[in-house]
């Protein structure tokens, strides 16, 4: 069963003029995420990184299209396939790689690992490890923005698997009833672990779940940052106008398995190839050169800089220390004299 972004015509949202600068930013961000994760997988193979590790490879256009369409004052919360989202928010490769290593210099002092990056300064409310749990949390983050009467919204991201959780329906219902400034994004990569979307529901078009709540909803081609950007720009304008939530099903694909331990044998080679042929980084690289937005030399310069950034991140992580054992009892309570049982 092939779930697919290409087979059904997905809307690309309203066309808006995209500057050369934005194309280059998309290219650079997608490449940074891709190379960061390829190196993370390599270091996982060397057992430098442990635990569960879910990579975003293939889905980078979503992160890129989101960041260009919202502001840094807006909030994002997502699930555990989240390295790329955090880097898109502005978390440094050093802090991200050190977190994967479990080092004290990591974005969360080595306490969160691959699934749990959080950064208050980047309005990044984290990687959540319980499928779908972040959906009502995102509504709550948006609730607080509305309560304070800001114009900020909360991008609340989840996968196709989470779309089948009850938490989604409760959050959809309340956020529509209360017109919360929340942009729900389902990154439909086709598979909830090994179960294809078609096998999880009578409603394979996930965006249609919005219809039951009269929430504006549409499907978007997630292999194209421009399509993602345009759809999100339109949705964000709707939300900022005080009209309440919006739901986008962004059809994307993960080239790797669900996690490092998953060989992904439930998919055909042809299906994976079909997506890789539409790889957002390769497609955009060709476009940049063809449309003379960048020279071969300029592209090489970006690639060299990204490689240097990832090399540096690994060096930084390697040279950093693991947290001291005394850190076990910090960050459990804000009360500084909490009497732990020992």
């Amino acid at each position, binding site marked *: 069963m092939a779930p697919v972004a290409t087979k059904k015509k997905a809307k690309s949202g309203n066309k808006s003029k995209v500057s050369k600068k934005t194309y280059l930013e998309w290219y650079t961000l997608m490449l940074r995420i891709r190379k960061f994760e390829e190196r993370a997988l390599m270091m996982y193979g060397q057992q430098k990184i442990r635990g569960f590790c879910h990579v975003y490879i293939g889905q980078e256009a979503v992160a890129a299209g989101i960041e260009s369409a919202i502001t840094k004052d807006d909030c994002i919360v997502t699930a555990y396939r989240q390295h790329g989202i955090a880097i898109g928010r502005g978390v440094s490769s050093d802090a991200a790689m050190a977190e994967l290593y479990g080092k004290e210099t990591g974005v*969360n002092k080595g*306490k*969160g690992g691959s699934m749990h990056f959080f950064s208050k300064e980047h309005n990044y409310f984290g990687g959540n490890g319980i499928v779908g749990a972040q959906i009502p949390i995102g509504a709550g983050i948006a609730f*607080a923005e509305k309560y304070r009467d800001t114009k900020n919204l*909360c991008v609340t991201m989840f996968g196709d698997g989470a779309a089948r959780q009850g938490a989604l329906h*409760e959050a959809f219902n*309340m956020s529509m009833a209360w017109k919360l400034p929340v942009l729900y994004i389902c990154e439909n990569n086709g598979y909830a672990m090994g179960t294809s979307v078609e096998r999880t529901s009578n409603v394979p078009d996930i965006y249609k779940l919005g219809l039951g709540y009269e929430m504006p909803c549409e499907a978007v081609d997630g292999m194209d940052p421009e399509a993602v950007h345009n759809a999100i720009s339109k949705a964000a304008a709707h939300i900022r106008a005080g009209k309440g939530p919006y739901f986008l099903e962004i059809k994307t694909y993960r080239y790797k398995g669900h996690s490092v331990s998953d060989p992904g044998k439930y998919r055909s080679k042809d299906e994976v190839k079909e997506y890789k042929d539409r790889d957002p980084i390769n497609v955009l690289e060709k476009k940049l050169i063809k449309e003379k937005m960048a020279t071969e030399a300029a592209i090489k310069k970006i690639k060299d800089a990204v490689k240097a950034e990832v090399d540096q991140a690994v060096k930084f992580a390697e040279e950093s220390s693991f947290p001291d054992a005394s850190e076990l009892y910090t960050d459990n309570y804000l009360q500084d004299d909490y009497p732990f049982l020992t």
Partner: protein
Amino acid sequence: MSREIQLRDAIREAMSEEMRRDESVFLMGEEVAEYNGAYKVSKGMLDEFGAKRVIDTPIAELGFAGIGVGAAMNGLKPIVEFMTWNFAVLAFDQIVNNAAKTLSQSAGAFSCPIVFRGPSGSAGQLAQQHSQTFEAWLANCPGLKVISCIDPYDTKGLMKSAIRDNDPICFMESESSYGFTGIVPEEEYLIPIGKAAIRREGTDVTLVSFNKMMIEVNTAADELAKEGISAEVIDLRTIRPLDHHTIVESVKKTNRIVVVDESWPFAGVSAEIAYEVQKYAFDYLDAPVVRVNSADVSLPYAPTLVSEYLPNPRKIIQAVKSVMYQKA
């Protein structure tokens, strides 16, 4: 000036005072606004604070608990009311996996200052699904604080402390005790979280309990006094962190302890207290620690079975006499 008020009034006063004090505090839950609260705890609060801050939710415990968690992570101080803690089981994912762990998994970047509150325990013939206690379940989880009390004075002071506290708190009240009265001053005061109260000083045996079992314990202590047995009565008030110190110091004086806990016996609060007492007062004990719990079964409907299930003064007196090696 003091006056006698009900438990429900004490909780409402605490919430209202804190909402007047701090604009970021709000109340949400089923029937809290227009219906004035299923048990009239929030009566009048919608009129005073408006629909922005006193919010009726649909019946969706997981969803509104999660909205509370997100709002707390983003700078607000939610009070989330569950009509009963039995329904909060639907929201345990948000309480246990998110509220409790936000600070740890974000390494301090985000906190979750939220109060989850509602009644816990049996309340007449409500049968299996509406009669459970959850103190032990939630107190097992690091990151949470758990408060369980019915004394109006204590409850008001602890509720105000809970709302001001920046850690996530589970606050257990009692459906059948919302009309329980007590003397409460009009002036503002706080009760610290994590401190037990010695309700009655005594010399022969320590009785430890919390929430509405305190009523049974006090009745038992009165009866025991008539028989010349002097019981020291401790109301835990806070379950996590547990005030072991007060319990252990009492046992060092009385050399005997009976724990009365409406929870089921297995791995419960009573078991935790028994462990701490054997660890820190082993040489002071003149008898094994004895506990009086609800029966190790689901609570059925019939009145005879409810009566058999719950701790009561008779069972407590029997337990006290056993640790004093007296015939019941």
